[in-house]
């Protein structure tokens, strides 16, 4: 079942055509990798999908319903949540309270929200950090906190922006395990990731963006053999893409 789809998405910033005619969809129980060289427009696409940036043209549907005019809050309430590439923890409150703010979306009781948040923290392996103040945590922890906050809203669709950046290999493996579990639970996941190994391993399907346009779509194996994709990465930072 298609959970989230876009048709002919376009966005211009002044003279820069940041996103041009991008269409794709993601289904329940599917992980879609969104890759492309730096500046390809991946994060802008997330901004458009989550409602923080207004698109100039195109359609976004969530569960079949057009949501183009919806605010970010309304989209989240309907089950579409995003994380930020540069993580945005609520700095002066505890990890548990951070996640509880996400959980407040589904309950009016603070106590219930805390219990839900505690459960989510168990799932992402942050239970022992629950009472720490979010500001000043190491980057690996903050990345997981970002995912935990999003998870606490009980989303149907998750837009995850570089959640593995800065993680050590064992943490990356844990994160991939978490993603697979989300897939089993029936969530639709769109994943922006620079860690090529991780995104190619975990994604069911991959969409490749370059200069704001979709240049390839298919399984990891298909796109990695695609000549347009190879030249896009060669033109930019083939080496760094290979490094990961």
């Amino acid at each position: 079942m298609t959970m989230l789809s876009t048709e002919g998405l376009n966005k211009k910033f002044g003279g820069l055509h940041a996103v041009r005619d991008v269409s794709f969809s993601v289904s329940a129980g599917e992980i879609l990798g969104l890759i492309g060289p730096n500046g390809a427009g991946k994060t802008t696409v997330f901004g458009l999908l989550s409602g923080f940036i207004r698109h100039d043209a195109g359609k976004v549907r969530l569960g079949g319903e057009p949501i183009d005019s919806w605010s970010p809050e309304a989209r989240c309430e309907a089950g579409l949540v995003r994380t930020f590439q540069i993580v945005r923890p609520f700095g002066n409150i505890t990890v548990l309270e951070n996640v509880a703010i996400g959980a407040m979306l589904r309950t009016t009781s603070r106590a219930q929200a805390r219990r839900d948040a505690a459960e989510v923290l168990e799932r992402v392996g942050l239970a022992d950090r629950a009472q720490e103040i979010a500001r000043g945590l190491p980057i690996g922890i903050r990345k997981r906190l970002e995912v935990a906050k999003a998870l606490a809203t009980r989303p149907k669709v998750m837009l995850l922006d570089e959640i593995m950046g800065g993680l050590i290999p064992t943490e990356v493996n844990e994160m991939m395990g978490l993603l697979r579990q989300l897939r089993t639970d029936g969530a639709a996941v769109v994943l922006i990731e620079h860690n090529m190994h991780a995104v190619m391993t975990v994604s069911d399907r991959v969409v490749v963006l370059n200069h704001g346009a979709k240049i390839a779509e298919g399984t990891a194996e298909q796109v990695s053999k695609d000549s347009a994709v190879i030249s896009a990465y060669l033109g930019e930072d083939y080496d760094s893409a290979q490094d990961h």
Partner: protein
Amino acid sequence: MLETLLQLFVSGILAGGIYALMSVGLTLVFGVLRVVNFAHGEYMMLAMYFTFWLFTQLSVDPYVAILIVLPAAWLFGIATEWLLIRRTLDAPHIAQVFVTLALSVLLQNLALLFWTADFRSIFVPYASSVVEIGPVLVTWSRLINFIIAIVTAAAVGAMLKYTYTGMAIRATAQDRRSARLMGVNVDRIYSMTFALGSALVALAGVLVMPLFPVNPFSGGEFILVAFVVVVLGGMGSLLGAVVAGLAIGVIEAFAAFYLGSEVKQLVYFLFFVVVLLVMPAGLFGKRGAEVMDVT
């Protein structure tokens, strides 16, 4: 009728020159340090008192007093930057805002302590001598003040554009981290910028002393005008401050003439609110400084 309009316009422009000078320092400090100095008006008030004191105690002519008051204001700026501002640059926003607000309360009440709440003014004979330019009458001192204000603002602009220090200031305003990496001594730039801002507003204070009486709360009124000007011009924009200063001068002159001097303040505050709401980045400001970045 036409003569009245012309007269009002010219008076407004001349007053606007001083507003521009008051605001240039405020906008510069905001542009570079990202701090709004809520005590900016008190610096002007202190400069006015200093001028008053020099004139009454030592018979120093206000225009000569510039040579004494400006260096003093410069030092005072360096001292406040070092004592207060620098310590709050990385502090929560609330500390940053309220440290300068508390400073303004402090300076106001120190002034109250030393000089009482009475209005003080000085009389120089040439302040009221008039020159005719076509159908328009202006006083010499206002005309000279205007010229000094505009020349000073232009000089600051040229300094920022063409000197090494000016370029370092602009680089720091753009991106303090990169500037530091490029070898700019950011702390020194902050100190200098704040001192320059203090000296500029002090100059405005010296220039208006023969025209307006001063009391400890004069700064509070001037700062409100300066805020209107700086926001209208775009926070951090030098040219914006000058253009907006002149515009506010003209608006005020017309409002005072047609609506009465009590209502004129109301008019430019309403104008201020409208500007904040309709174009919060001002005329020449960079968009986005006023609102949260969202990607």
